C-alpha cells in the first residue's frame, strides 16, 4: 500500500440512512446492548471477563496439580475441595494419576485456547483495534458477536467434559494419537469443543483482517499503524491459515473415535493385551504434523499481541518514538511467515532423517532472528527516554528479560542434538512458560492496567498494582526457574509424581516443593489484582480521556466511547506516525496522530 493513499471517504449513501439508524440505536434493550451486543467494545469486554475467568480456572487446576507434585500421594489438605472433585478422581483425598492427566491436559488447553488467545486477540484486539484505526466498529458486527458466542460455547463444552464418564480429556493438550483415540469420552467432547473454538477464531480473524485493511481512516497508511495493530494483523493471518488444518485433524480424530476409521491407527495395534479391532493403515505422525502445523503458529499468536501491547506501553512511558518501527513491522511479518515452516522442531525425536531435520533446524534458527530484532528494538527504545515507572510500564519492562529467558532457552531445543537430552523434559516446560506466563501474561496485565482508564474512566490503584507486580515477578520466577534445573537433570514432564520414581531425578526433587509453594504464593499475589480490578470500577481515581498523554487514536475518543457505532463524534483524520512523542519544537511532549500540521 503506497504512502499516498487515496482519500477514504465515508460513503454518502450511508448518510441518508443515518437518522433512521440513530433512532434505532436508542431503543436497544438490555439484552441487545450487553448480552447479544454487536458493539466491538462490549464484545471486547465480554471476551475479557470470560477469558480472565478461564485464566483463573486454568491456574487453579495447576495449583491443585502442584500439590500432588510437591507431596506425591499425600492427602489433599482441603477436604471440601477434594470432595468437590469427587471420589472417582481423588479417593480419600489422594489424587489418581488419571485425574492428574486430565488436569494437565485441561490446564494446557484452557490456558492457550480459552485464556490467553481470547484475552489477547478477542478482548484487546476487539476493544482497541477499531479505536486505534479510527473507525466505529469492526467490519462485520454480527459476525463479531457470533464469534464471541461460539467461543463461549466452546468454553462451556470444555468445562462440561469434566462431567463425562472417565472425566475430561487426558491425553495432553497435544492429544497425540493413538493415545487420544483410545481415550475416554472426554476426548470426544474436547474435540467438539476445539471445533467450536476454531470456528470462533476463524470468524474473528476474518473480521480483524477486513477491518484493518478496509476501515482505516483517512491518512492512516499501513506504515502509520500502531505496532499493536500490526501485531493483531499478523496474528489474524496466523489464525486464519493455521487453524483449518487442526480442524481437519479434529474431524479425522472424531471419525477415528466415532466411526471406527483408522486415520491415526497403524495396523497391528495391541491394546491391553488385545489386538485392536480396526482396519489399521493409518499414521500416528499424521496427527502430529497437523497438530503442530497449527500449534507452532499458535505460540506466535500468543506472543505477537503481547509484543504489540508492550511496544505501545514502552513508547508511551519513555515519551519517545519506538526505535526502528519499520524493522519491528517487517520482523513481525517475517516471524508470522516463518512460523508456518518450523513446526516439526517439536518432532525431532519421531525418527527424522538428516535432510528433513536439517530443514527444520535451519528454519528454527532463522525464526529466532526476527524475535531477536524485535526485542533489540524494544530495548533500544528505552535509550534516551524519560522513563515513567507506572504499573503498566513495570509489567511491560519485566516482559523483556522474561521473554528473553524463554526465547533463549528455545535455542537449544531448536537444534536436534541437544533436543535429544531436553525433549519432553521440564526444560521444555520452563522454556515455554517463560514466554507465556511471565512473558505474555505479564504483557496482558500491562495492557489491562494501561487501557483500564479508557474502558472505565477510572484508573487502577497504583500501590496495589505495584504490590501485584513485585510479588508476581518474584514468585513466577520461583515457579519456573527450577524447571530448567530439573530438565537439564533429565526429568520428564507430565509425571504424576514429579519424578519421584527415578534415580536420576533424586538430586533435583527437592525443588518440587519450592516450585509448588511459589505457585501458591503466585496465586495469593493475584488477590491485590482482583481486588483492584473490581474496586476500581466504582472507586478508582477518575481520570480524563487521554490519561497517559498518548498519541494513538484510541486515546483521541472519549472515555468508554458510546455504544452502537459511536466511537468518534467526527471521523478523525490522521496526519502523522503513531508515536510522535517529544517532537522537537512542539509545545507538549506528544502530538496525537490526528493533530494536523507539522508541530
Amino acid at each position: 500500500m503506497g504512502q499516498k493513499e487515496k482519500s477514504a471517504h465515508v460513503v454518502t449513501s450511508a448518510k441518508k440512512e443515518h437518522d433512521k439508524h440513530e433512532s434505532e440505536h436508542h431503543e436497544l434493550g438490555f439484552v441487545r446492548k450487553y448480552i447479544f451486543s454487536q458493539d466491538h467494545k462490549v464484545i471486547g469486554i465480554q471476551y475479557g471477563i470470560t477469558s480472565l475467568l478461564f485464566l483463573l480456572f486454568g491456574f487453579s487446576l495447576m495449583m491443585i496439580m502442584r500439590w500432588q507434585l510437591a507431596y506425591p500421594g499425600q492427602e489433599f489438605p482441603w477436604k471440601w475441595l477434594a470432595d468437590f472433585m469427587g471420589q472417582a478422581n481423588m479417593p480419600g483425598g489422594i489424587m489418581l494419576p488419571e485425574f492428574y492427566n486430565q488436569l494437565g491436559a485441561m490446564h494446557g488447553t484452557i490456558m492457550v485456547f480459552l485464556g490467553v488467545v481470547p484475552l489477547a486477540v478477542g478482548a484487546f484486539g476487539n476493544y482497541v483495534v477499531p479505536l486505534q484505526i479510527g473507525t466505529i466498529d469492526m467490519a462485520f458486527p454480527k459476525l463479531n458477536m457470533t464469534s464471541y458466542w461460539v467461543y463461549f460455547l466452546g468454553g462451556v463444552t470444555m468445562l462440561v467434559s469434566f462431567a463425562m464418564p472417565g472425566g475430561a480429556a487426558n491425553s495432553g493438550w497435544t492429544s497425540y494419537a493413538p493415545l487420544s483415540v483410545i481415550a475416554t469420552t472426554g476426548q470426544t467432547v474436547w474435540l467438539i469443543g476445539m471445533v467450536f473454538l476454531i470456528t470462533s477464531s476463524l470468524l474473528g480473524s476474518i473480521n480483524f483482517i477486513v477491518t484493518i485493511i478496509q476501515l482505516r481512516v483517512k491518512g492512516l497508511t499501513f506504515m502509520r499503524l500502531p505496532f499493536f495493530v500490526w501485531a493483531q494483523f499478523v496474528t489474524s493471518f496466523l489464525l486464519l491459515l493455521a487453524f483449518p488444518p487442526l480442524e481437519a485433524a479434529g474431524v479425522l480424530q472424531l471419525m477415528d473415535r466415532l466411526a471406527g476409521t483408522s486415520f491415526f491407527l497403524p495396523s497391528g495395534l495391541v491394546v491391553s493385551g488385545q489386538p485392536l479391532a480396526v482396519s489399521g493403515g493409518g499414521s500416528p505422525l499424521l496427527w502430529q504434523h497437523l497438530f503442530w502445523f497449527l500449534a507452532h503458529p499458535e505460540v506466535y499468536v500468543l506472543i505477537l499481541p503481547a509484543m504489540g501491547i508492550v511496544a505501545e506501553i514502552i513508547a508511551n512511558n519513555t515519551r519517545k518514538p519506538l526505535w526502528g518501527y519499520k524493522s519491528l513491522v517487517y520482523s513481525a511479518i517475517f516471524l508470522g511467515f516463518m512460523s508456518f515452516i518450523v513446526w516439526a522442531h517439536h518432532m525431532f525425536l519421531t525418527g527424522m532423517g538428516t535432510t528433513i531435520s536439517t530443514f527444520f533446524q535451519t528454519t528454527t534458527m532463522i525464526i529466532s532472528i526476527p524475535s531477536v530484532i524485535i526485542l533489540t528494538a524494544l530495548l533500544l527504545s528505552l535509550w534516551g527516554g524519560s522513563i515513567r515507572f507506572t504499573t503498566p510500564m513495570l509489567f511491560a519492562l519485566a516482559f523483556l528479560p522474561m521473554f528473553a529467558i524463554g526465547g533463549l532457552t528455545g535455542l537449544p531445543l531448536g537444534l536436534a542434538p541437544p533436543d535429544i537430552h531436553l525433549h519432553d523434559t521440564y526444560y521444555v516446560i520452563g522454556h515455554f512458560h517463560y514466554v507465556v506466563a511471565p512473558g505474555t501474561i505479564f504483557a496482558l496485565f500491562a495492557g489491562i492496567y494501561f487501557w483500564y482508564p479508557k474502558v472505565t474512566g477510572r484508573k487502577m490503584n497504583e500501590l496495589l498494582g505495584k504490590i501485584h507486580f513485585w510479588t508476581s515477578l518474584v514468585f513466577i520466577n520461583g515457579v519456573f526457574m527450577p524447571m530448567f534445573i530439573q530438565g537439564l537433570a533429565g526429568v520428564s514432564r507430565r509425571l504424576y509424581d514429579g519424578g519421584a520414581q527415578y534415580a536420576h531425578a533424586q538430586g533435583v526433587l527437592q525443588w518440587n516443593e519450592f516450585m509448588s509453594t511459589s505457585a501458591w504464593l503466585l496465586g495469593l499475589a493475584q488477590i491485590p489484582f482482583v481486588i483492584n480490578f473490581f474496586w476500581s470500577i466504582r472507586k478508582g481515581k477518575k481520570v480524563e480521556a487521554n490519561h497517559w498523554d498518548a498519541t494513538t487514536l484510541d486515546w483521541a475518543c472519549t472515555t468508554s466511547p458510546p455504544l452502537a457505532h459511536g466511537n468518534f463524534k467526527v471521523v478523525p483524520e490522521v496526519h502523522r506516525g503513531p508515536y510522535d512523542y517529544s517532537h522537537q519544537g512542539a509545545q507538549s511532549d506528544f502530538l496525537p496522530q490526528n493533530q494536523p500540521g507539522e508541530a
Partner: protein
Amino acid sequence: MREILGLPMDVSTHGPVIDNMIVIIHWLMLVLFVGWGIYFLYTLFRFRKKRNPKANPEGVKNHFSTYVEIGVAVFEGFLLVGLAIPVWSNVVTDFPSGKDVVNVRVVAEQFAWNIHYPGADGVFGRRDIHLVTSENPLGLDRTDPAAKDDITTINVLHLPINKPVLIQLSSKDVIHSFGIPLLRVKQDAIPGHNVPIKFIATTTSADISKQLDRVYRIAPGHIPVQLTNLSAKAEYVDKDGNSILAVGETITRDAIDAALSAGITEIRAGSDNPVEIACAQLCGLGHYRMRGAVTLETEAEFNAWLAEEASYLDY
C-alpha cells in the same frame, strides 16, 4: 558450565558432543542475557524520569545493535552447520552391523518395556500379535526355530560396555519415548514404526553407582525415597553402636524409622540401578511409572547373564 547446568553423568561415547553443544549454547545465552541485562538495568537507571525529565526522540544512532544481531545470526549459523547437522547425521546414519554388535529389540507398551534378545543364533524369532498374552507380551512364536533361543525380559535391559549396541524400537499400542538420560539417548517409540538406535556405553552400572550418591533428608511421615533399590553409602549406627544400615544395604522403611529414632536425619545413599529407561512421552495413567532398569556391565558379565537367562528356556 557443565557442572553449573547440572547435566547428569554421561556414560556414552556420543554423549559428550551433545553436552558440549548444550554448554556452548548456554554460553551464548548467558552472554546475550547478561550483556543486554546490564544495558537494560543501566538504561532504566540512567533514563528514569527524575534524572531525565525530557526524552530525546532521536534515540540510539549507532549500529552496534545491528552488529550484535549479525553476531547472533552468525553464531547460530555456526552451531547449525558446524555442530547440529553433522552431529545429528552421525546419530541417525551408519548403523553398526556385524558380529560385534549387540542387537536388541525393544517394544514399548502401556506401561512397560519389553526387551527381546535374539539369543545364540543372532536371529529374532517371529512375532504375531494374536499370540500376545500376559506371559508372552511380545507375541513371540516359540514354534519358529529362530525364536527358540530368544531371550525376553520386561523392564530389564542388560548391555555390555564398549560394544556397539543396536536397538530396534517400536511400540504395541501408543506412542512412548525411550529415554535413557545417562546415555543421552531418547527416541519416540511409535506404533507401526521401527526405529533403530545406536550407542556405545562406556561405564558399568556398578562404577556409576559408586560415583553417584547423595544425601537424603529423612523425616517422619516424609520419606523422599520411592526407590526400592536405594542402598546406603556409609555406615550408620545407633547410640549403642548397633548397625542400622551397613554400606550397600538396601534402605527400608524400618531402617528409616530406626535411623530417625537414633537421631539420624540424613543418609548418604545411592541407587543400585542408576541407569534408567524413563518414558518421556505421555502414554496414559501409568506414564510416570514406566521405568526400566538398564544394567551396564562388562562383556563377560553380560555373556554370563545371557547364558543364565538362556538356561531358563526349555528347548
